């Protein structure tokens, strides 16, 4: 469970623990440590990666940035006094399934951290939280997160989640899947779930490519970007995910990148607590298949690219239509939409009550 945020930590109580064997040497923790506490070591772990080391322990403020950004759950702040000796994701990730299948420098693990922290902070009953994924690299999230979890078919996580959420109104249903899964093969379901304001939170990890199948073009890939199926550059205009969700009527819409771990975590928390359809797009590096082919470097380079190219959404200046992502161009981030329209369940319930009166038998929560 996350310790209280915002309170200064006593450095005498805290230390940084590193599980070198989990590390894949992406360097996120070192690069994004605001105090220069960490450095890459010269050691190798058994997989041949250089794990980080605590180079300047006195500089550490125990902000937990390294812990949040680490996609391998390999570094964390620990305290005997506070009884914390594991990574924040440890209680919600099936550690018996580690190491995960994601490449070094992939951001999906970072999104998992943000999701896990958001779950902790939202105070949801973890026995009543359901996670649904489709197919692909991000589709494997459901298999790693220790909740009631469903790894469904390609593109169909949302309609499965619709059935689950309607059938069990006492459960919080979360979909985590990739951009190919949710906006190509699953695009139709995405629009309709947003239109219905179906009771679910959708986290779309957008890495602009089909990673699992070798890097084919997705509907979010910017024009001109190179994929194995667009070797001369993508011709077609990409989807702007927040714009779609907004125009279909979603109650909450946000986009952040894996560089913005705090914002991403807070956005997911808000999404989890918003009734109806909420969508958080997480722009995430695929160094192996997108970054490499598009000369954007490795995972760390992509993270730096996000830092440099992100612009904040300003309500008085922008609409979600401005959030389209061009090739090597700016990435608009922010919380775009926050509405309070009745969710599908509520709309269904109140409409039937109104029309049928005494004859209406509300669907009971399965006992």
């Amino acid at each position: 469970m996350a310790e209280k945020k915002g309170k200064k930590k006593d450095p005498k109580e805290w230390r940084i623990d590193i599980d070198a064997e989990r590390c894949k040497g992406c360097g996120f923790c070192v690069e994004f440590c605001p105090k220069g506490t960490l450095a890459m070591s010269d050691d190798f772990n058994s997989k041949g990666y250089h794990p980080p080391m605590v180079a300047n322990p006195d500089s550490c403020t125990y902000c937990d940035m390294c812990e949040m950004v680490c996609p391998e759950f390999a570094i964390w702040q620990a305290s005997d006094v506070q009884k914390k000796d594991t990574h924040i994701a440890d209680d919600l990730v099936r550690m018996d399934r580690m190491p995960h299948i994601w490449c070094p420098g992939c951001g999906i693990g970072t999104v998992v951290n943000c999701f896990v922290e958001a779950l902790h902070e939202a105070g949801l009953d973890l026995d009543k939280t359901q996670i649904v994924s489709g197919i692909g690299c991000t589709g494997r999230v459901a298999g790693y997160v220790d909740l009631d979890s469903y790894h469904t078919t390609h593109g169909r996580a949302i309609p499965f989640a619709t059935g689950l959420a309607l059938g069990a109104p006492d459960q919080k249903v979360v979909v985590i899947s990739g951009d190919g899964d949710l906006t190509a093969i699953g695009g139709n379901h995405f629009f309709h779930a947003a239109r219905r304001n179906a009771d679910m939170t959708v986290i779309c990890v957008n890495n602009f490519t089909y990673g699992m199948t070798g890097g084919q073009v997705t509907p979010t890939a910017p024009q001109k970007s190179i994929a194995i199926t667009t070797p001369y550059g993508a011709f077609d205009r990409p989807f702007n995910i927040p714009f779609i969700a907004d125009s279909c009527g979603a109650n909450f819409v946000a986009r952040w990148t894996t560089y913005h771990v705090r914002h991403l975590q807070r956005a997911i928390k808000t999404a989890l607590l918003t009734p109806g359809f909420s969508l958080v797009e997480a722009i995430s590096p695929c160094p192996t298949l997108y970054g490499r082919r598009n000369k954007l470097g490795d995972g760390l380079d992509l993270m730096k690219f996000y830092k440099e190219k992100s612009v904040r959404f300003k309500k008085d200046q922008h609409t979600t239509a401005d959030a389209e992502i061009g090739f090597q161009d700016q990435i608009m981030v922010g919380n775009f939409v926050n509405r309070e329209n009745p969710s599908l369940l509520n709309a269904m319930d109140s409409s039937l009550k109104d029309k049928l009166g005494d004859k209406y038998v509300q669907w009971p929560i399965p006992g």
Partner: protein
Amino acid sequence: MKADPKRVLSGNHFINGNHSATEGAIAAGCTFAAGYPITPSTEIVERIASRFPRVGGMFVQMEDEIASSICLQGGVWSGRKAMTVTSGPGMSLMMEHVGLAQITETPCVFINVQRAGPSTGLPTKTAQADMMQAKWGSHGDYEAIALSPSSPQECFDYTIDCFNLAEEYRMPVFLMSDEMTGHMTEKVVIPPADEIELVERQFYTGSDKYLPYKREANGIPLMSKAGLGHHYHITGLTHDERGYPVLTKPVQEKMMTGLMKKVGDNVDKLTRYEEFMMEDADIALVSYGISFRMAYKAMEMAREKGIKVGLLRMITCWPFPEKPIRELAQKVKSMIMVELNYGQMFLEMDRFSNKYCETDLCGSSGGEVHEPEEILTKILEAAKK
């Protein structure tokens, strides 16, 4: 367990097969349905949409059949009995999720009110040309259970049976109706609730870690549902007892053996058929669903001519009633399959009987049921041999 009297419209009705199937589903305890409009099945979702809110059920019209066929599985894991309804083109779209329900062992019911195909074909006219699709339509190997009603009464009765079988075997089950049966209006007797026996879902109640694919002595794993704290994992990937994906041949083999055996070991128990005038018969008609009624008429006409014809009517088409067909083939000199396609169940009948007797097909393009005279002509040909 008995049916809930609040959900059963006991009494005599004059309704069509589609409405009757809906009442069967409600009586069976179905409280979740997802569907998409398609002729000639639509009366079922129409009646569901009207009836479900009055009996504590949830119906959602989805954006397409693909969505319906997986939305219903979300409904199942919420703890409900769930179904969807469609016809040919919709069934083709649903096929991937028949496979998902098979590998995840999700109990649910698919009603296919068959029409003539391929493709859009004859949307308003009957056929029985999806019979092989029910067994082989989704990729990969699996066993299927499919029941074929021939009347509105059987649409009611067999829909309940489908739900019971789905729960008992933890798998998807097909009701293979057709346009004619669905749109035919006849007397339907809905019995009192206490005469309707239901199979309830078996949930895991132990205190150890729940293993969603650990087979009990009967070969069927126990179910869970959202919110029990089991933190299970359900996947369409090849998985072990824990539900975790393990992509190796030994695990694939173990999983597949379990899937195939839970039906394969129970074929005798699952097989249902009826025989008519078979005692002295030397020609046997074999049929199912709506075609059975035409075959019956043809049998009577042949008997009037003094030809010794009997009729075996399959109620379960899948698993195929291999044993009764093989036994019958050893008693008669000729067997004729009567069905509204170019020989789908005929292939199954033929492979179990052609060693012992002559076999023939009285098939059809679909579009109309057989004229009994067409079947009679086949009988007369067989009698001459």
